């Protein structure tokens, strides 16, 4: 499939230092372009044009690169709750069709984010990191994740299409699961999960040549449990199909070769368990990702036993930037290896989010050849905020 316009060119350079410099140059240019777009009265975003009147600086003149992003106040996610949603659509896009994606939504208003093509570009960039051997071009996908007003639903379908495949999906409403858990209806939440897994087993038994899938850590574990307990074989029998010799008691034997996983917290222990116990010691390739509706998604370094299943994420720079900062002073980066709060900036013409404090913390990671900018590892709920939220339900 042809690339969606706006996909950045890969950073070049003969050495890591040169790549780091070139990546920074690319980021500075992106900041200038995006700020000029969102704050220009002709093309700008109504929300930002109004907000600029409260600033003690002029974004069009005073923001000339990444360093100047600190001039913007910290982004408050409550700004995204409630309408009018059109305030977030830059005038420069005229009458182009707009999607809206939502997060949360079990209590009060969900956060909303408008999108035109960003999810396509993000996932095309992500596609470039997937090994063709494990994610064969032209093979079909199963989207075992949230449906409804979620970005993931369309994004995974686009990823499958971009790679020449067709994506099957299930119905999954995470808000219902959160309601069950808050009401301590454990059995009902479990029954709903079983319902979701049953849908995916039906798709896998349908003879659709599915080799790739997206899933969340918990649903991956639930799918593995179901297949290991013979649910896929049962479905074959129910459909009158012959069970292949060797059986269908593992994700590998179900024909899956590559798994793109994310959506909720990913721990090294879960990654190890998946690698060793669900995915035949890495025979089925799995790549964790970190992301959300605001940012897009960050890819991880390849995971494996050689580095203790450590998961390090790198944002899709220059379209988004992850910083690991002192929770008491967002302008201060922690040292490499140090722990801090994740600060996120999204820098696209569709959506401008400067310096948004995520509800996560982690350790700052050094740039490396593939991603010559800072990353974050050990991502987990920010300790000072955790405890009040039901997370990772699907």
């Amino acid at each position: 499939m042809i690339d969606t316009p706006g996909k950045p060119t890969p950073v070049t350079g003969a050495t890591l230092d040169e790549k780091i410099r070139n990546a920074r140059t690319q980021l500075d240019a992106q900041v200038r372009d995006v700020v000029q777009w969102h704050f220009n009265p002709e093309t700008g975003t109504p929300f930002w044009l109004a907000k600029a009147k409260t600033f003690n600086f002029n974004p069009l003149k005073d923001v000339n690169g990444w360093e100047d992003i600190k001039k913007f106040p910290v982004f408050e996610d409550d700004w995204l709750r409630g309408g009018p949603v059109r305030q977030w659509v830059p005038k420069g896009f005229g009458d182009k069709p707009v999607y809206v994606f939502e997060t949360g939504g079990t209590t009060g208003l969900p956060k909303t984010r408008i999108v035109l093509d960003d999810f396509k570009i993000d996932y095309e960039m992500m596609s470039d990191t997937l090994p063709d051997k494990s994610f064969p071009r032209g093979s079909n996908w199963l989207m075992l994740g949230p449906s409804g007003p979620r970005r993931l639903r369309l994004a995974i379908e686009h990823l499958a299409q971009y790679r020449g495949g067709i994506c099957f999906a299930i119905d999954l409403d995470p808000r219902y699961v959160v309601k069950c858990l808050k009401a301590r209806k454990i059995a009902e939440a479990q029954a709903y999960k079983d319902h979701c897994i049953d849908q995916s087993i039906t798709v896998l038994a349908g003879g659709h040549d599915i080799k790739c899938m997206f899933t969340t850590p918990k649903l991956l574990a639930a799918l593995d449990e179901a297949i290991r307990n013979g649910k896929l074989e049962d479905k074959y029998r129910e459909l009158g199909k012959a069970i292949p010799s060797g059986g269908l008691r593992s994700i590998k034997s179900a024909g899956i070769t590559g798994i793109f996983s994310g959506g909720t917290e990913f721990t090294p222990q879960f990654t190890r368990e998946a690698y060793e116990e669900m995915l035949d010691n890495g025979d089925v390739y799995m790549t964790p990702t970190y992301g959300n509706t605001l940012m897009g998604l960050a890819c991880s370094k390849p995971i494996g036993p050689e580095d203790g299943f450590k998961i390090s994420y790198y944002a899709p720079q220059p379209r988004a930037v992850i910083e690991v900062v002192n929770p008491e002073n967002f302008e201060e980066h922690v040292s490499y290896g140090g722990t801090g709060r994740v600060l996120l900036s999204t820098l696209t013409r569709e959506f401008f989010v400067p310096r948004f404090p995520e509800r996560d913390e982690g350790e700052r990671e050094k740039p490396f050849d593939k991603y010559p900018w800072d990353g974050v590892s050990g991502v987990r709920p920010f300790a000072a905020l955790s405890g009040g939220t039901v997370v990772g339900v699907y």
Partner: protein
Amino acid sequence: MIQIPALRFGKPYTSLDKATLIHHVTGEPVAEVSQVTGSQIARDVGLMERAHKELRAIPIRDILAMYKKAADYFVNATLPCGDAELSFDDYVRNLSATTGSPMVFCKRNALKVHYVLDNIEEVIAGLTRGLDVEALDKGFSNKNGRMQAFYPTTNVFGAVLPSNSPGVHSLWVPTLALKMPLLLKPGREEPWTPFRVLQAFIKAGIPSQYLGFLPTDHAGASDILRLCGRSMAFGDDRTMAPYKNDHRVEIHGTGYSKIIFGEDQADNYERYVDIMVESVAANGGRACVNASAIWTPRNADKIADALAKRLGPMKPRAWDNPDCEISAFAKPEVAEAINNMLEDGLKTPGATDVTAKYRTMPRLVTEGRIAYLLPAVIRCETPEHPLANKEFLFPYASVIECPQADVLKRIGYTLAASAITEDPAFIAEVMACPHIERLNIGALPTNRLTWDQPHEGNLFTHLYKQRALALASA
């Protein structure tokens, strides 16, 4: 620092996720315990059908002999504990260090576990109501022409365990003798007793593939209760609420245990002060069989005063002091919260802290990293008072006056009751009372247990169901 792995039915497993246990007094790390996930538990439970089949094939007499050996090893041998080897005294010291329960309590309760291991045949006979143990090999007994046959209700028994007292482990110990694979989820601060019992079993010859030691979080504990065909779980009323109607889960919750005086003995209360003190305060008052209320038709003020006079002067002592009577709270904020609940209750008119005049220091005592709650005897004027039917993690008792004719209608759920009476008519009423689970009649404290009788359920009838069986050859 000791590294304690999970035991995944024959395979020690060192996880990347570990819980660090610290010494409640010094804050020094004592051990790291490998944690497993719910999906790992699910994978292991999936293998239990085969394990169960293999375990069933071992003759019961061989298993009972292994229990005897395990009993000896439990108290006399140096046994592996992860990367360490622990003597019985080392084990008791570690147990006390991470739970805050004084060493003297830990040792006393650990010996209850030893008792069950050492007297397993007697315990099994009690639980099966005298069934020939060979019935566990054959699946039936045909003694004196009376056929009794049973079939297992599960392939594995799961136990979600607490951290408050090692005595509770006596309850799951008979599982293997009932030829059932065993999956243990230890309490966060108390991996020591389950791990040591399993090591004693392994040293005694019980194959490790029938034994699971799977430390996990709350979600993993829920998975155990979901996946095991039969299980037991310890928790407060709120935690256990989702399982209240799940017959597969034997719930061990709040005890609300009580002493009940009959009309005939209420005037003789002074004879029973020792029994009341033991019922309320033994083991730091933290067990579900500790009395949390005393009901009497007369003399409530005098009973409260007599009890307070004995409990009020109790003082905190160091965890390794053999005279220690009060358990420490490793988390002072928990003690503070309990104390606040009690103080809030006292704001409702009709309740008096009778111990206050006998204490030489405040009820809440904070020392360094830890806190203590000193005993409280609360005289409640009516059974409706908010403090009349409460249970806390320290020696606490309300004293309530209520006519004998009404008492059994008003006590509510009572795990263990000691009815202090010699009146045959009242004894008959107490015997028929559906609110009481464990019943002691006469001068016995509420915490006096026999392990061959049911405790919030009978392990044998939990794991086996009776069936009709006819044999053409018989």
